[in-house]
């Protein structure tokens, strides 16, 4: 296949390409010329492995504009100071309109540039300075600018301020990078957005703010009392919200002005001229006023997402676009017939492309842990309405079809499956999977609605509005449900729980006493004592992460400030607070993301069986082998891999341990409280953190060495270790309760593309999904690309640019991930369903 010449490739028809399952070539031949141009025009912003692609440069205009205004406003309350700085950026940053495009808005001055927010984390600022390849030419001049910026922000950023008040032991251990990742600030975060509120239009929001301010000012003219005092702080916050909303409207109008200029002075093609005038009309209308048609609703939506990212690094994109835009599609395509289906598909496809092109600098740990993408932009599709009825609509189908045409790796979709989903919609999901996109991931809606009610007490009608927060976690899009700041630093490297239980809390990789001293395992008398040490290490690891992020959360309005997000948050507008202030009525929706989780169950099972039950090896022998990183102990290592029970084979010996671990964590999750006094359940999943942490987790009793990739999923069996077939995997995963034993559980499955071809393939998959739903699992996602294609792509990456794979929680273009990650995906077991 990889040997074909370009000439024979041209000669192949779409049908022939489909028969060969070369879906990327099918897409290139069937999408419109406009989509083809726009798709190929995108500068790749996700890092390739840990590095940015050639030609990608950091945008220095944004931080310079921001900093110059910020310095001018020194002394203002932080939200006001920031609002002025953001407005200055929005008024002055260069904007552009790409040929053939219809949806406007980009974060940065030019399509090949990525941005960063200098106010967030000085360590990242320094990392940018040190980064290879992204410094704009002339390099010497750029380095001067960067050094000046860094000298100013050093010690002044949100994280610098937080690090000064954190317990120093917590700060050092957290920033060792060994136990978790993320930043305890909304400088690097993401937020849920309630479009039923936002689509009122910014002028309506401004009027609402004005009303609140007048009401408050009147109160302040009254009798002095302690109740009046907090009102003084609200006024500058509302003023800040006004400043950014007005600047946002001006920003949109800059696009309108440019589109009109192009139509009047540059464009000779009458069709494009008409498009440019429509763009101008659209950008004059939104976001100031409510949208009236599909182009306006998509444009409004995209402006909001872009503006939010001018304020901070929003590294995920919680959204339910079929639900938000469905009524506008219906009006334009079905009722008023203002657009044909093809024209609508061009807009929907471009919506995916405009999202895909967004780039924001990420530190190396995030690039390694999210290889190939800027952030986990998982859009939610399907599901139910607040009354429980099916929410799927024509837009659900349009997004699925557009995804197969443009084949972007960001956004991807998570589909809320429920028993009322129509077959035509389910077929669309399957077609995307069959075309090798790796998405949509399938989510069990009834289970997750119940889960959301169980853990946080969201009312069921609100729980039914849920959207994915990044990869996996549901959160309602309601006034008190919306989550303004993801607790990203509560992402745990769970394999350290078992590693620390073995090493008395000491971390041999980073040379530091991390966890509590739970004793030398050589002295433990039985497995229960060992398990007790594991529980203590688990509690310590969760505690330090949750403590750090709880403090970061309450201090965020003081240290960072979110004027734009606050302006589009109903509860923040109503109360004159920062959207991230947990005292404004938010119910709380916190969770600990559990990377590298399954190693615990497999390692515990190996220890229980070989050391305590069968006494085949002593703990001393095991520790010797582990301390040598298994070097010189290969036969013993293979024994631990092949002959100890492994998760995912419907074997109660190890499955019971997995359930026991999950229940210990769930107990502890209710003891940890977020600032809204709600719970912190565990959510096992990995993105590509299993590759990032491969270099940070030492040898383990499941047979891995330092450097080996960790298991890929949240509850996926180890690659190649699920020997008993797909039903055994599902049965193991069905042994715990997906409502009460944790937040959500990521399961990767690899299926054979040849087996699942044709109608028979669809029916087989549907039967598999029935078993999955009957067993009450909350998540599953699929890779359906064969080995030969993936190996050919490794060999000749240029020819396979649009081959996509599911990593874990997100999809990436195969050529954009490191060789180790590629190999890890190929190692996964291909499950036969028939």
């Amino acid at each position, binding site marked *: 296949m990889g040997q074909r010449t370009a000439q024979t490739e041209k000669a192949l028809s779409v049908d022939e390409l489909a028969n060969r399952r070369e879906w990327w070539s099918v897409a290139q031949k069937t999408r419109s010329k406009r989509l083809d141009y726009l798709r190929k025009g995108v500068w790749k912003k996700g890092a390739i492995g840990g590095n940015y692609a050639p030609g990608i440069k950091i945008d220095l205009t944004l931080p310079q504009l921001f900093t110059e205004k910020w310095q001018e406003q020194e002394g203002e309350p932080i939200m006001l100071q920031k609002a002025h700085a953001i407005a200055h950026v929005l008024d002055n940053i*260069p*904007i552009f309109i790409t040929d053939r495009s219809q949806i406007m808005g980009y974060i940065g001055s030019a*399509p090949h540039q990525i941005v960063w927010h200098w106010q967030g984390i000085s360590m990242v600022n320094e990392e940018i300075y040190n980064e290879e390849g992204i410094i704009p030419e002339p390099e010497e001049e750029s380095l001067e600018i960067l050094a000046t910026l860094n000298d100013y922000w050093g010690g002044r950023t949100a994280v610098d301020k937080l690090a000064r008040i954190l317990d120093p032991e917590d700060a050092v251990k957290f920033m060792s990078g060994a136990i978790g990742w993320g930043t305890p600030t909304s400088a690097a975060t993401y937020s849920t957005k309630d479009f039923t509120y936002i689509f009122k239009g910014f002028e309506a929001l401004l009027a609402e703010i004005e009303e609140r301010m007048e009401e408050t000012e009147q109160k302040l003219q009254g009798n002095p009392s302690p109740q009046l005092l907090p009102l003084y702080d609200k006024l500058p916050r509302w003023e800040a919200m006004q400043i950014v909303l007005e600047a946002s409207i001006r920003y949109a109008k800059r696009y309108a002005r440019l589109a009109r200029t192009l139509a009047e002075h540059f464009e000779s093609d009458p069709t494009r001229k008409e498009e440019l005038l429509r763009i101008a009309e659209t950008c004059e209308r939104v976001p100031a006023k409510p949208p009236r048609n599909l182009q306006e609703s998509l444009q409004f939506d995209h402006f909001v997402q872009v503006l939010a990212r001018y304020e901070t690094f929003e590294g995920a994109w919680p959204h339910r676009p079929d639900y938000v835009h469905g009524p506008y599609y219906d009006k334009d395509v079905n009722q008023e017939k203002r657009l044909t289906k093809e024209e609508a598909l061009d807009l929907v496809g471009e919506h995916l492309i405009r999202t895909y092109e967004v780039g924001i600098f990420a530190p190396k740990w995030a690039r390694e842990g999210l290889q190939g993408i800027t952030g986990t932009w998982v859009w939610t599709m399907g599901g139910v309405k607040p009354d429980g009825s099916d929410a799927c609509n024509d837009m659900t189908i349009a997004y699925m079809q557009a995804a197969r045409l443009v084949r972007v790796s960001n956004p991807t979709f998570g589909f809320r499956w429920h028993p009322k989903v129509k077959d035509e919609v389910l077929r669309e999901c399957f077609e995307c999977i069959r075309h090798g996109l790796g998405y949509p991931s399938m989510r069990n809606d009834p289970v997750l609605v119940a889960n959301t009610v169980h853990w946080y007490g969201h009312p069921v009608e609100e729980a039914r509005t849920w959207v994915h927060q990044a990869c996996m976690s549901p959160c309602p899009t309601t006034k008190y449900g919306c989550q303004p700041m993801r607790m990203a630093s509560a992402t745990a490297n769970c394999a350290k729980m078992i590693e620390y239980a073995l090493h008395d809390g000491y971390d041999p990789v980073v040379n530091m006493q991390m966890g509590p001293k739970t004793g030398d395992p050589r002295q433990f008398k039985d497995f229960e004592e060992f398990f007790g040490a594991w529980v203590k290490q688990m509690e310590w690891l969760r505690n330090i992460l949750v403590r750090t992020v709880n403090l970061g959360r309450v201090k965020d309005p003081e240290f960072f400030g979110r004027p734009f997000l606050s302006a589009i948050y109903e509860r923040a507008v109503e109360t004159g607070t920062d959207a991230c202030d947990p005292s404004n009525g938010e119910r709380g929706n916190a969770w600990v993301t559990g990377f590298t989780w399954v190693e615990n169950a497999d390692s515990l099972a190996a220890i229980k069986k070989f050391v305590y039950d069968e006494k085949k090896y002593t703990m001393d022998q095991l520790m010797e082998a582990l301390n040598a990183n298994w070097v010189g102990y290969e036969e013993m290592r293979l024994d631990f891999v092949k002959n100890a029970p492994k998760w995912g084979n419907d074997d109660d010996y190890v499955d019971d341990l997995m359930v026991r671990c999950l229940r210990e964590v769930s107990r502890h999750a209710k003891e940890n409280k977020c600032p809204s006094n709600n719970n912190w359940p565990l959510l096992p999943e990995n993105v590509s953190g299993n590759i990032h942490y491969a270099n940070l987790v030492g040898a383990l009793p499941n047979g891995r060495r330092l450097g080996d990739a960790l298991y890929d999923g949240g509850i996926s069996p180890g690659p190649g270790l699920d020997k008993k077939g797909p039903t055994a995997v599902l049965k193991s995963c069905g042994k715990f309760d997906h409502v009460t034993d944790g937040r959500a559980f990521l399961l990767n499955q690899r299926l054979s593309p040849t087996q699942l071809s044709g109608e028979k393939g669809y029916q087989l998959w549907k039967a598999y999904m029935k078993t999955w739903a009957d067993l009450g699992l909350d998540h599953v996602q699929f890779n359906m690309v064969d080995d030969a294609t993936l190996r050919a792509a490794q060999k000749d990456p240029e020819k396979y640019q649009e081959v996509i794979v599911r990593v874990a929680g997100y999809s990436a273009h195969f050529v954009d991930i490191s060789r180790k990650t590629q190999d890890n995906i190929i190692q996964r077991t291909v499950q036969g369903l028939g």
Partner: protein
Amino acid sequence: MATCKDCKSFFAREDDRSQGDCVMRVVDPRQAYYQATPVETEKDASKCSSFQKK
């Protein structure tokens, strides 16, 4: 002294004549686009390498 308003790429703002957009055609290795940068009408353009007299 040449100022931005004398340049072919300059388009004045209707709501504020002291400001305008510098509109440039850019063809990069992947895509072609028009870029607008806000400039002051009277800004000195004598050192601007893209200046083209109207």
